[in-house]
């Protein structure tokens, strides 16, 4: 069995036993439901906005090659540079080289899931460049050497006490007797500490929520305003972006903006929604002298040609995580993947290979809420089901109940054997549960019955009832 697969049940069990995490996840999901309901009542056309966003993402993916070329031409026209990277290693090397060319000692960063995906910070540290995360949640995680546990609320698993401890340990130049017991004190300290880092940084690194081909612009969406300081104050701006983010026009980008914050946090729009186009002009009052866009494939072009291409529509809002009952029970870290929750269960194996994340598509009850809330209607349950089928066919991947399922599949195709067998099985189950109305444990599926009772079957099989009703199947 693969080590990641072996670890998942243990990590999930540990997460279920963590009361701080449980309380945080209950708050996250309860408030998300409430706030999303209020958002929907303010925006009666939301379903039409979702359809529009889905259509836009689809035609952008269909034309990705031409749109990326157009984007590149227009970035060059505004005075910027585009770099193409096949994989994470090339992307890390490119960003590191650009930082070195800028003689950078520190790089301030705004939140980027792609940066997590390619493990950029480790590469910068190895090259002697200090990365400083400036999104408050990401900054807290950097101090604690943790990864984000939610796409838009990365530090959702922590409480104020844990954050205060991290600040006390890391901000050692401050008075050790200071009060950090409340969120306002933590915020004030983070603002003051990070303000100095913004002003001193040599390079600013952002991701992008979209690339706009017609103008060569990148779209940056934040509530804190940190991305705007990151791309404005340092002398060099580097944006690292997945190639699937390209869109044809500004109007298409606005279609994404209209569903992004509403789906992420149930806000109408984030506080700052910015289009950056090139470096500072010659007469400009401020801004960076150099602007680089680092385009990263890292499995996306291959995914586009395969059965999981629909997941490339994803705009990273995190709504599927905020509603998923499995995510709500175990949080993001139990998945042990950059992208957790339903979208992670598809993206992680689709981008990096099923053998690296065989447990993720299994972590779903298939309740379908992820697809119901997805702003670009990614059919997440269908994609997870297909990944389970892929897993089933691959001998190198352990699948719980594979032999039992094979046996059932073999028997079900032989009605002369299956029907009497089923009758016998039902009779035995009724006998087992006769004295208490439920069955406590069963052979072959003791893992399943270990946590639940198996109901005692009532009446005959479906086929028997069908025949008893006198109806015939349609041909």
């Amino acid at each position, binding site marked *: 069995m693969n080590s990641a697969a072996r670890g998942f049940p243990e990590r999930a069990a540990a997460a279920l036993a963590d009361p701080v995490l449980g309380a945080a996840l209950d708050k996250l999901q309860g408030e998300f439901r409430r706030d999303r309901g209020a958002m929907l009542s303010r925006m009666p056309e939301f379903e039409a906005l979702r359809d529009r966003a889905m259509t836009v993402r689809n035609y952008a993916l269909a034309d990705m090659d031409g749109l990326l070329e157009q984007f590149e031409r227009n970035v060059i026209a505004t005075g910027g540079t585009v770099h193409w990277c096949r994989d994470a290693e090339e992307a890390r090397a490119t960003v590191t080289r650009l930082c070195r060319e800028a003689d950078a000692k520190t790089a301030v960063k705004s939140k980027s899931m792609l940066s997590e995906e390619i493990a950029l910070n480790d590469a910068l540290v190895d090259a002697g460049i200090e990365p400083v995360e400036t999104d408050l949640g990401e900054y807290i995680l950097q101090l604690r050497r943790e990864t984000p546990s939610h796409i838009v609320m990365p530090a959702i698993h922590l409480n104020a006490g844990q954050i205060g401890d991290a600040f006390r340990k890391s901000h050692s130049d401050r008075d050790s007797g200071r009060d950090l017991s409340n969120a306002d004190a933590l915020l004030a300290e983070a603002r003051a500490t*990070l303000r100095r880092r913004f002003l001193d940084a040599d390079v600013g690194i952002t991701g992008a929520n979209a690339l706009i081909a017609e103008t060569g612009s990148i779209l940056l969406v934040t509530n804190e305003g940190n991305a*705007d300081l990151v791309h404005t104050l340092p002398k060099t701006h580097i944006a690292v972006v997945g190639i699937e983010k390209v869109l044809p026009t500004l109007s298409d980008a606005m279609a994404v903006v209209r569903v992004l914050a509403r789906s992420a946090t149930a806000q109408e729009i984030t*506080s700052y*929604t910015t289009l950056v186009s090139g470096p500072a002009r010659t007469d400009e009052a401020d801004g960076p002298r150099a602007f680089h866009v680092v385009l990263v494939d890292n499995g996306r072009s291959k995914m*586009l040609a395969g059965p999981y291409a629909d997941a490339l529509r994803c705009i990273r809002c995190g709504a599927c995580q905020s509603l998923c009952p499995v995510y709500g029970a175990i949080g993001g870290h139990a998945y042990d993947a950059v992208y957790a929750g339903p979208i992670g269960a598809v993206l992680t194996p689709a981008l990096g290979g099923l053998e690296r994340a065989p447990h993720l598509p299994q972590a779903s009850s298939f309740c379908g809420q992820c697809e119901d809330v997805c702003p670009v209607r990614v059919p997440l349950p269908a994609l997870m089901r297909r990944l389970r089928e892929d897993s089933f066919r691959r001998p190198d991947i352990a699948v719980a109940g594979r032999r039992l399922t094979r046996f059932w599949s073999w028997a079900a195709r032989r009605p002369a054997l299956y029907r009497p067998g089923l009758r016998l099985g039902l009779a035995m189950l009724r006998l087992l549960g006769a004295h208490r109305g439920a069955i406590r444990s069963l052979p072959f599926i003791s893992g399943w019955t270990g946590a639940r009772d198996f109901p005692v079957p009532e009446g005959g099989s479906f086929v028997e009832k069908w025949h008893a009703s006198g109806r015939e199947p349609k041909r």
Partner: protein
Amino acid sequence: MSARDDILAALRVGAANRRASASASDPVLPARATGDAIALRDRFVEMARFAGASVGSAVAAGIPAAISAYLSKERLGDRVVLAPEPALVSLPWRSAPRLEVRTGVPGPEDRVSVTAAIAGAAETGSLLVSSGSRTANAAHVLCETHIAVLPAGDIVGGYEAALSRLRGDGGAMPRAATFITGPSRTADIEKTPQIGVHGPKRLHILLVNE
């Protein structure tokens, strides 16, 4: 082959089928982004306040006095750094004698910035601002208080209409253009809503009446 060639070649596998099945669609504008000038102005004010901004209004000659009154009401001192846009510099600043006005690029010591907005999008009460030769982008995010001056006639319905006012001759974009909707905020500590993490703690919009 270069990385660029490799990636583009991989993206072309099966592209014809994808193009054949992808369909175009027209922009969908929420009803909230439509209406006459009075309705749009009312909606802009309502949505900007919903996002946590404060909104006042004055005739052009009354803007300096309105800024002075806002600063003393909120106890924010008398000093502002003004973006040297002609529309702002030409205002009668001597009519507000308590104000200390410096024009230029804000630095870390500045607490209040005053800039001119390009448009207001009624659909979410968002201001569209941009960087340029006179307005530093830092003026929109660096200070604790940002005061934005917006002619009421520049309020439009949706984002697209606002963006169409942004692009110069030949459709060129400014380096940075931002829809600002309320003050800087976060919910990263225990999902508690908090104001003013990196950008302004206060966004005050002054509409200029015709």
